[in-house]
């Protein structure tokens, strides 16, 4: 199936982002799930136009993107902001070897975060990737996600401005903060 059926509660950015990944020619997607990515993952896993790999930890996806690039495909990695920390050293591979690859991160640890343990890596995720040579964009509106994905994919796969991977961080204000039992919001 094409994965085109939207769930009733699917956020507005998901269908257009799915299409943006297809239009960018992504052939292999690795992910570690996040609540904010759940609808997109359902769509991608139902879409036989690309290959989805369920990763055990996020850094595997960084290495896999390098292999996909070497083999002539186009790789993407989907994860939550805490996963960025798991990737730090491996991101150096993409930078050192000028590997094209696209990373989509859903943010935790921002203003409305109800779990303080998410704060350190949430606050450091963007800067960590920048320090490791990834070109980072931030999407702060639902309408802006797909356009940022399209731009970031063009930059890494066909652009001449940046050699290496690119990323889009979807701000927590777009995703919505996770709620916990007993929290009075």
């Amino acid at each position, binding site marked *: 199936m094409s994965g085109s059926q939207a769930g009733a509660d699917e956020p507005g950015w998901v269908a257009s982002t799915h299409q943006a990944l297809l239009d960018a020619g992504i*052939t292999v997607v690795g992910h570690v799930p996040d609540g904010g990515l759940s609808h997109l993952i359902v769509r991608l896993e139902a879409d036989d136009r690309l290959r989805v790999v369920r990763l055990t930890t996020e850094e595997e996806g960084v*290495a*896999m993107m390098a*292999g996909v690039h070497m*083999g*002539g*495909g186009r790789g993407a990695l989907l994860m939550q902001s805490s996963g960025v920390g798991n990737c730090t050293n*491996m991101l150096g591979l993409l930078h050192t*070897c*000028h590997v094209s690859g696209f990373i989509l991160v859903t943010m935790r640890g921002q203003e409305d975060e109800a779990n303080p343990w998410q704060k350190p890596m949430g606050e450091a995720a963007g800067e960590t990737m920048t320090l490791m040579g990834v070109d980072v964009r931030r999407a702060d509106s639902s309408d802006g996600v797909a356009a940022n994905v399209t731009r970031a994919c063009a930059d890494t796969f066909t652009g001449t401005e940046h050699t290496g991977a690119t990323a889009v961080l979807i701000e927590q204000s777009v995703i919505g903060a996770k709620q916990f039992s007993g929290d009075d919001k």
Partner: protein
Amino acid sequence: MSGILNRRDVTAALLADRGDLLVIGGLGAPSWDITAIGDNDLNFPLWGAMGGAAMIGLGVALAQPERRVLVVTGDGEQLMGLTALSTIGSAGATNLAIAVLDNERYGETGMQATTTATGTDLAAVAAGCGFAGAVTARAESDIDGAVDLVRNQPGPTMAVFKVNADVPEQVVPPRDGPYLVERFRTALGV
């Protein structure tokens, strides 16, 4: 108990008549080993990214499903990427194989023991993760069967070769990352 096999003899057997085999070399001695047998545009020897060799192999295997991909790595490198065996066991890449040259030591940093010296059985882990085949070669007479598993049998497969702690001549490959990637892509025609 540490191994008796010679790592260069094993590597030569792994890469004999390699044809269009795609080879990823794990950080450290395995990169020197595959280069000693013969540098090749279809070798990607790692100088970093420790723990990433197997997943780089998976990425190549998914992008090139008609080609055989062989990751040649060490026990320390594979242990750092142990979770990748779970991922690979589920990813369905029948053209991917991993050969581990297991000397039970971190050879590049002073020969400190790895956890394969004290119980971790990498072939058992791979089997437990759903690999199609996984063996440990301890004797010379085990080499041919283990090589056949990783060169010819449906994957994902793993062969662990228990090698001795000898340190052969360091034969270094090119270390320029973009060059190594582009020569690989060019040789593949992508």
